């Protein structure tokens, strides 16, 4: 037995040496830039699965998988009105493998209304491409006596603090848009916050609240079937899917422009080659007929933008919301 031992030890040593040599040879640094993407890319969605941003991320992500040849993984990280997921994306490696599906809330509004969001979208994120831009639709219950936005505004002015509006949460676009409307026309309505758009929609349909700035996608089905009436849309131009619904801007408040947008963001230090490739890919996908039609049906279609244009767009949004928050003092906490 003992005579075997030295031989066994020797061969074990030889094996270990061989293994170390193999590891040394194969442990070359990965030149990721030249062969981007060389591994799966994750899109962080800072909300629970099933929401608007999540659906868009999965839709676009599926196409990206086939175009780029690498799997796109959607990672949901909800919490803090999108702040948790945004924070995760902000601190990830700037190598183009951790993208953020950012929406109005976490990119523009959070830093304005939160004391400590834990990230700075202007510094941490580079806008790549806008993916969807959808109007908010001002809806009222089907049985409501209010038939157009002008009479809603009239009632709000003559009877202050009697009309109620729902929102999908404090300091969400649905809240801020309604706030901007009432302030702009010199009226005052009572804000009723809900935990998400689903609950808010339920209570509008049920007639518990008087009105709600709902996302176009969620409202379309109900407007078509008559459970809700659409009074106006929040974008400067009319929405194709709701052709005969006027805009707020053309009826009661010129210059009114609010929308729910979502886009892909990456970390600021990501290499130029990677960001160019990503934004080109996404814009191609957006321009493809099937995706374009899908988004148009939901009222979320948007013309593709270059990173520079998108950056300017986000900056404009920031100014608009900053003014509103400064005037109204809305805080998230």
């Amino acid at each position: 037995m003992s005579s075997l031992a030295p031989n066994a030890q020797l061969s074990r040593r030889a094996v270990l040496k061989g293994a170390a040599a193999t590891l040394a040879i194969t442990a070359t640094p990965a030149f990721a830039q030249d062969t981007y993407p060389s591994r799966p890319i994750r899109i962080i969605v800072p909300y629970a699965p099933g929401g608007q941003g999540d659906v868009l991320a999965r839709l676009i992500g599926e196409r990206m998988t086939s175009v780029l040849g690498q799997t796109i993984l959607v990672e949901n990280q909800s919490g803090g009105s999108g702040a948790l997921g945004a924070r995760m994306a902000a601190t990830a490696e700037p190598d183009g493998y951790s993208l953020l599906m950012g929406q109005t809330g976490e990119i523009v509004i959070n830093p304005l209304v939160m004391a400590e969001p834990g990230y700075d979208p202007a510094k941490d994120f580079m806008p790549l491409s806008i993916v969807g831009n959808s109007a908010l639709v001002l809806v009222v219950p089907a049985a409501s006596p209010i038939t157009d936005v002008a009479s809603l505004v009239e009632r709000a002015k003559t009877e202050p603090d009697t009309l109620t509006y729902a929102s999908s949460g404090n300091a969400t676009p649905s809240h801020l848009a309604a706030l901007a409307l009432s302030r702009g026309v010199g009226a005052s309505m009572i804000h009723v916050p809900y935990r998400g758009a689903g609950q808010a929609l339920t209570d509008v349909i049920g007639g518990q609240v008087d009105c709600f700035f709902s996302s176009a996608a969620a409202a379309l089905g109900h407007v078509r079937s008559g459970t809700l009436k659409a009074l106006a849309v929040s974008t400067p131009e009319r929405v194709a899917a709701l052709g005969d619904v006027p805009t707020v801007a053309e009826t009661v408040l010129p210059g009114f422009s609010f929308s729910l947008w979502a886009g892909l963001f990456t970390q600021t230090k990501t290499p130029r080659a990677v960001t160019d490739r990503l934004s080109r890919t996404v814009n191609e996908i957006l321009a493809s007929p099937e995706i374009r039609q899908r988004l148009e049906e939901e009222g979320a279609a948007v013309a593709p933008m270059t990173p520079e244009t998108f950056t300017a767009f986000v900056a404009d949004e920031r100014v608009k919301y900053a003014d509103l928050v400064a005037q109204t003092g809305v805080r998230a906490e």
Partner: protein
Amino acid sequence: MDLFANLHLGIEAAFSLNNLFYCFVGVLLGTLIGVLPGLGPVPTIAMLLPLTFGLEPVSALIMLSGIYYGAQYGGSTTSILLNLPGESASVVTVLDGHQMARQGRAGVALATAAIGSFVAGTLATILLALFAPPLAAVALRFGPAEYFALMTLGLVASVILAHGPLVRALAMIVLGLLLGLVGTDITSGVNRYTFGLPHLAEGINFVILAMGIFGLGEIIRNLENPSERGGAHVQPITTLMPNREDFRRMAAPIFRGTVLGSALGILPGGGAMLSSFASYSLEKRLSKTPEAFGRGVIEGVAAPESANNAGAQTSYIPMLTLGIPSNPVMALMIGALIIQGIQPGPAIISEQPTLFWGIIVSMWIGNLMLLVLNLPLVGIWVRLLTIPYGVLFPIVLVFSALGVYSLSSSPFDIAMMAGFGVIGYVFAKLRCEPAPLLLGFILGPMMEEYFRRAMLLSRGDASVFLTRPISATILAIAILGLALAIAPTFRSKRREIFVEED
């Protein structure tokens, strides 16, 4: 609107070989997920969403639905065998289910849960088929005031459900309410008790609390007292299947549970989780031997299991007909539909009849498959209990940690679970039941949210709770129930006083 023509459409869709296969895959996966403590249907469905892109909408929904109610079936297995409620719906099953397991009746408990769930699922599916749109309309009449009244009824149900001294139960409920306060208040946006930790901004997750207090607490206690580990590990399993007497006893509770669960499941505001508590409390109130509840009575398993399965099925009504999710799983299903280009809403029954009726018929098939799957498996699950505890508890620990980690990939959550485990152990030593705490935890924040919203909408007029008919009725039932629950305490106190005077 010919019912038979619609059912025929649904049967054609659901009985296709493809869809039968997807249904089977769904329920199998769902059962496996449900059995693993901590891992729930939400992360599973989220992970499988991309797979559904290539499928037909009907097939996708059939598979995802299979996972959902399969997880309900599987969740009751862990509740009964390991005293671990994986989700809020299973909290009540542990009360009597695990006690039955300790008495060597684990097989009977599991079979009862499976049979009750199947009957409830069948009846609820029929309800869905016949009354989906009118039921949705009824659900819409529930505003914040009504939901508040409902939650109050739920709290009263928790009092009834509690075992032992009333004061202790009340204390646990209040403690649960307090724990539920942690997080961001939806009405004002203020962060409460988050200690600046962003992670707590959404509040403490129910799974962490349940796993910690029930699961870890129980494990620590069992490790401390090997002899007190309970009959399930010591006594041989007497029978696997319920006998005639058991069947007779479970019939009425199953029926009552189904009715209650179906009614509460329709409400988009989250009535479904109330269904198991409410039906348990109802059975306890109606029983001739209420003190036996909590010690392993079959009614205490049959009723809540039927109620929560019925609730799970009827929660499809607001999802399909209104496009409104009543829980996170429904939100995922809506997401899956939207990805396929279908917007759930009032028009779905007329625009997508194959989808709607296919899902309904497939629900029944899924329930049947689950019954066929689970009854024979009872024998295998019960064998789990014969694993030496020294091997069983690390496995349970690892899976619980995995389940908690799967929530948001945060080690902090696992540390919190450990903390609650210690607290759970302390409660066990003090002989305070954790179930009322969990109920207070769930109901408290919801009650507050609905109360404040109702007050906002009524412009500060508190009489709204009494002037709205549905709300007033429910509150009256709640007050009556509370009075009936507390009265015996006074009666016995008076008896005590008289005894002392003698």
